[in-house]
């Protein structure tokens, strides 16, 4: 990773943490960017490649973990923004209850 990177962090709020589905969603999104993107559960590292679902799952990060991300290279800021947005949207998962009818 070059020294020229952008960093951000967010709390994992989805019920089961960074489990299989979120890990795969994150890596699929990460692979869509040319930028190098890394993830950590501590600002001090260790940092792992955000394009490896096996590595992300190894964090076994439960709900409430602060997830750190950093990106460098082409389009780093946009890549980081979209990655953080996916986390803040709870990986687009439905709410805790099977959602029903209506409204909000």
């Amino acid at each position, binding site marked *: 990773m070059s020294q020229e990177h952008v960093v951000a962090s967010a709390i994992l709020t989805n019920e089961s*943490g960074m489990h299989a589905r979120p890990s*795969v969603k994150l890596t699929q999104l990460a692979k869509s960017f040319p930028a190098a993107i890394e993830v950590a559960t501590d600002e001090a590292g260790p940092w792992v490649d955000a394009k490896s679902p096996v590595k992300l799952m190894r964090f*076994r990060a*439960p709900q409430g973990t602060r997830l750190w991300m950093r990106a460098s290279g082409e389009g780093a800021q946009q890549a980081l923004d979209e990655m*953080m*947005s996916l986390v803040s949207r709870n990986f687009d998962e439905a*709410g805790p209850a099977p959602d029903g009818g*209506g*409204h*909000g």
Partner: protein
Amino acid sequence: MAERLLVGVAASPGLVSGRLWRPESEAASQADPAASTGDDEAALHGAIASAGQALAALLGELDGDEAEVVGMQIAFLEDDELARPAFEAIAAGQPAGAAWAAAMDAEIAAYQASDDEYFRARAVDFQDIRDRVLAELSGGASGPLVVPDHAILLAAELRPSEFLSARWGAGAGLALAQGSPTSHVAMLARGRGLAMVVGLGPEVLDLHGEALLDGAEGTLVVAPEQGRLAAAGARIASEEAGRAQAAVYAARPALSRDGVRVAVQATIADPSDLDGLDPAHFDGIGLVRTELFLDRPERLTDEEGQLAAYARILAWAGGRPVTVRTLDAGGDKPIAGYTPAHEANPFLGMRGIRLSLRHPDVFRVQLRALARAAATGPLKVMLPMVTLPRELADARALLEAEIAALAAAGVAHGRPALGIMVEVPAVAITPERFDAEFFSIGSNDLVQYTCAVSREEAASAELGSVADPSVLALIARVAAHGRQVGREVSLCGDAGGDPALVPALLTAGLRSLSVQPGLAGAVKAVIAGLDLASTDEPSTPPS
């Protein structure tokens, strides 16, 4: 033989009366890792590729959650990191099978050691991947399980791909010695309606004979007594009859026993929810929840994308009415960059129309897309979380401005009917203040705001219900207002799909419900057993 009760953990509801059944051989995990073949690196590469191809072929036959489980396995299998330790061991002289098994066992052990139930349950997914590749290394995967009718499958554990490739007989169930209700297999069993109990302990594997499996209670009764067997048989017959009846009623219009017509519409969250649904089974779409597909800032301002989604729904409906709710973000549905980040009480803060009116740039795009879609079919636009008459007037002014702009630009458009959700008691108590073209009761929020009960807290949830006389009185008030002024009143909360609550809703005067598509048959079956003509019926059925 004396009856024996084993208590496990409920994983998927349903009752099975049948024979305990074990597959011939256990999973390939017991097979010896293949001995060295000479070119172990190429052998492992080939086995991983073949396993991936087999999973991709399986994926092609699946959709929804089932496809997602297999898709995740493919993603893990394609990650070089998974096999990296195995290739390192091969480079150090180990045979492919042993190297792969050892690398995967280390990965699996780390999951099994987790404190978190969810991550422990993922160990099975990695065992599944391990065994698929081992089977490829030893010359091809074994055939799929064929589970007989009314068989209760006994196994220590079941892998997701074993579950998905198995052929399940009618009335079959799963009884596992290990397992977890949060496993993918448990989720898959719930999706298929197969009863499943996990955590029954290793002794379950040595049992045989007749048994009763209760997936709701989490119990297995071996050699059940005659009385218990008869009671279970009656319950199974009654549940099957209920399902069969619902399937029959799903295809018919909803009519009460004394001939009162009730509109049963579908609630959807995404145009893809309509795949496989027959429009003739529904009286239109009562609610499209747009915030679930407009979940990213760039989609909020994508007019063409929204137009395509609305037009697709109208095309499916084939002339039946389609009600689209404008963006209902906020509360429990945040959208990054759109909803406020730190509200002390988001359910009483910036939600629904309140947010839309504060983001006219975003709101106008949706109104424009809706007006354009209205050129292709009978579209209705519904505003969420309306509290003040001014909010409806402001939204109408914005809609009119967009319609005028479209007309000036010569763009095809229509004039959708503009209605409101009734979820705030302020509206339900005095609906006559709101000049809406139709009303739709959002029962989940109406209960929350009337009974002061959070939807998010299980502990207090039981304090509030649509069946509460106060909520039913509000519903009756809105329904009476609708009849008086000749405007449709519908209901689009979860209560409309609950057979236990439908009689009270119709007695309160409602004649239109919007429900999850899968619940329409059960709701219509309930309606068919009711007499409604005496309950202050409207002179004409609502459309």
